[in-house]
């Protein structure tokens, strides 16, 4: 891996984190409305509590937006660099790693440790939370396997040390 490859992988993982956050916020918070950012500690039962959850959702989305921009900047940096790894599997694997790792950490911190919200509150919420972590970990493992395989397939760089 050279510097261009490293930037591509870093950009891919960072964008994966941002995409994971957007899917969580847009799909689960807004479209399906299964939960909101702090809905297990401030249940959205009236206008004020809905607005407070909306405010925390906004902070979360803002952070994910900045994260995505940082990922794009890494990609822009990779464009002008020499790269040896193929773009498709390298970027795809990196996105899966970022997506999966972020969801695992978010699931452990927010769902299990702080209990700010649960994926699908109510009956069976523990199973939903566990399933979320397991699926996310699988995404990360698949992404890492794709990346390692891609690095193994790459031709060696002369003079590498």
């Amino acid at each position, binding site marked *: 891996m050279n510097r261009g490859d490293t930037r591509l992988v870093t950009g891919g993982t960072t964008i994966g984190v941002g995409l994971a956050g957007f899917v969580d916020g847009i799909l689960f918070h807004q479209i399906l409305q299964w939960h909101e*950012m*702090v809905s297990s500690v401030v249940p959205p039962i009236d206008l004020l509590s809905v607005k407070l959850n909306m405010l925390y959702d906004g902070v979360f989305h803002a952070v994910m937006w900045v994260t995505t921009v940082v990922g794009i900047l890494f990609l822009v940096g990779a464009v002008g660099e020499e790269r040896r790894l193929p773009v498709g599997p390298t970027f795809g694997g990196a996105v899966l790693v970022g997506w999966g*790792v972020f969801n695992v950490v978010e699931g452990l*911190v927010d769902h299990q440790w702080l209990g700010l919200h649960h994926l699908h509150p109510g009956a069976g919420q523990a199973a939903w939370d566990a399933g979320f972590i397991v699926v996310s970990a699988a995404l990360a493992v698949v992404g890492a396997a794709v990346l390692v395989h891609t690095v193994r397939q790459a031709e060696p760089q002369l003079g590498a040390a």
Partner: protein
Amino acid sequence: MTSMVEMLAMGLACPDCPTQSAAREIFFTQDLWVRLTGTLGPLVVTAAAVALFVTKLRRYGLGRDARRVGGGA
């Protein structure tokens, strides 16, 4: 269906409506750090994990290059 004009009149949706002000007041005064930890903490932990992963992957790639160029396994 309540129109936007009616919502404004009721104080539900405007920059300084009572509910907005109250939500901001609660945001800054009640459990701010615990909730911000939940909102921002996963990103910080993930950034560290990703940085570690990219570093290891790069070392793996460089080590593999060195072995192959040097005629090793």
